[in-house]
């Protein structure tokens, strides 16, 4: 399985551990990642550029996808937000007139968007392409003692139409399923499909912190040892701002947040340090000792 690899800005910036762990697990899973194919790809706009100018945002995404199409490769993402923004652009680009208008701009660079190979998140690829049987056969370390709270990130849940849940119903529960495949127990908590508040963090920090506090504390109180997320922006917010949120709530939370590829890597038997699990703000020491691994 070969993909044009679109890591997204956050994995290349604030969350380098996501990038590293992805590379490690892809190798074991037999997923070949071609990053060079995307070396002139831009940011997806993350929904922010789209606030200002949707046509411009859709054009940039069509361009990114066209770059991969030129190499005959589908795109693999590792960020809920990148994925959602691209899926939404793909949905609008189903309109022929709109597609023609955008292709008119892309033509100047010798590119064309056709949309024949939809972009997918690594989590979807694991669930849809590798599947339960093969995945479980690769698991070397069953994480049976762990209780994990899944946190999807808005863009991997809504709008369900753009994300094509009607064609791929397994996407609705993919994170819970993966958690079970690695042997861990799912902590059922009300916020798993809610918003972490990241998009308004710089605009209205108090609101964002309340969201962070509510989700992490309720997962913790329901017995979670950690939270797992396919969205590095959620991660950034839930991990880096958790202590502030706890301070605001005048309580302790202390819930480690890990990336999907880090969870997968642990199950595949990789060393926590290789996965850079020790590079989070909320310490993962206790978590690793739960599965008898020293950090």
């Amino acid at each position, binding site marked *: 399985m070969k993909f044009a690899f679109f890591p997204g800005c956050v994995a*290349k910036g604030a969350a380098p551990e996501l990038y590293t762990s992805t590379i490690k697990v892809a190798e074991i899973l037999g997923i070949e990642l071609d990053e060079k194919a995307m070396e002139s790809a831009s*940011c997806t706009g993350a929904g922010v550029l789209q606030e200002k100018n949707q046509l411009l945002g859709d054009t940039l995404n069509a361009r990114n996808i066209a770059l991969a199409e030129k190499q005959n490769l589908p795109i693999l993402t590792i960020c809920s937000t990148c994925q959602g923004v691209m899926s939404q652009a793909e949905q609008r680009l189903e309109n022929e007139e709109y597609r023609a208008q955008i292709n008119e701009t892309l033509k100047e660079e010798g590119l064309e968007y056709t949309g024949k190979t939809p972009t997918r998140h690594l989590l979807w690829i694991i669930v849809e392409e590798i599947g339960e049987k093969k995945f479980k056969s690769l698991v070397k370390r069953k994480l049976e003692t762990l209780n994990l709270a899944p946190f999807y990130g808005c863009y991997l849940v809504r709008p*369900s139409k753009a994300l094509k849940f009607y064609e791929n119903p397994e996407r609705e529960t993919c994170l819970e399923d993966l958690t079970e495949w690695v042997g861990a127990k799912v902590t059922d908590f009300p916020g798993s499909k809610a918003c972490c508040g990241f998009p308004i963090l710089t*605009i209205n920090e108090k609101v964002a912190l309340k969201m962070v506090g509510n989700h992490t504390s309720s997962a913790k109180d329901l017995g979670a040892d950690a939270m797992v997320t396919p969205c590095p922006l959620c991660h950034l917010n839930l991990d*880096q701002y958790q202590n502030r949120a706890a301070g605001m709530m005048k309580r302790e939370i202390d819930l480690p947040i890990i990336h999907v590829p880090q969870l997968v890597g642990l199950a595949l038997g990789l060393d926590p340090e290789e996965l850079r699990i020790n590079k989070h703000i909320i310490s993962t020491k206790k978590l690793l000792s739960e599965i008898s691994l020293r950090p």
Partner: protein
Amino acid sequence: MVQTAKKTVQITIKRQDPEIDGNKPYFQDYNVEVEDWFTVLDVLIKIREEIDGTLSLRCACRASICGSCAMRVNGQAKLVCKTKLSSVEKDNKILVEPVGNMPVITDLTADFKPFWDKFNAVDPYLRPGSEAPEAEYIAPNEDMVHLVGVMNCIMCGCCVSDCTVLEVKDNFLGPAALAKSYRFIADPRDNTENERLEKLLDDGGIWDCTRCMQCVEVCPKDVDPMSRIMAMRSNSLNKNMNKSYGARHANAFTSLIKSSGVLNETLLILKTKGFFNIIELIKLLPLAISAQLAGKRPPFLSHSIKNKDKLKKIFKKLENK
């Protein structure tokens, strides 16, 4: 007569009554024999009529027109008259609760006062500037066709129920009222676009939305409130209404992508808060230090992409469209 299949389903209802146990919510299960064509509303009415006359709920049209039957089914806001039981039951069970983000009166009925207050706060009336014309107002067809989507709103409150910002911030105007505001802002016959937009820049207005898309997902009429909020954001940015952090964030983000193709989080924060906004920047310092200690702080001079000139060309062509 058409043969239909019957089966028994367990309906769990979140109930509360100011006269019972100090209004404390509790859950009650009902086992109901249902037909395969039942909607969730059909089951609730059957419970009220045949099993428990004390159950309180609202409905009227039973055809997704009146907007009175919004409730949460398995945690998500829905018009129960439009929701087939078979589409939501799992293992013959469903959970029905009143809408969220509004005070409950009894059982499944909520007090919509906050909903209407916010609605009224956006001045939901057409304000033509000049004297009324003698005959009808003439408006271009395409403008009105575009607005039909917003006018479809039946004020059911599903979007407000599930809005993630309203859960933590009471004074947010919320998706329904903001969508309504857009309905007038985008109406070519209304003459108060700028005043309306100016007001929405304040706390509680368009920049409070976190783009979680809940309202898009749950609206039974495809009003798409979030896109209307985004349209008002673009609209206000095009008019250089740049005073809010939200506007500065969007502008900074765009200019960073334009210049390097990718996002640099450090520069984004500095640009949003303002390079010389010392107080805000000092607040960020402890975070930057702990991130640095964990080996995480983003490189100040981050990478940029290949073929930047191609991207710049696209920006040049489209940025003012």
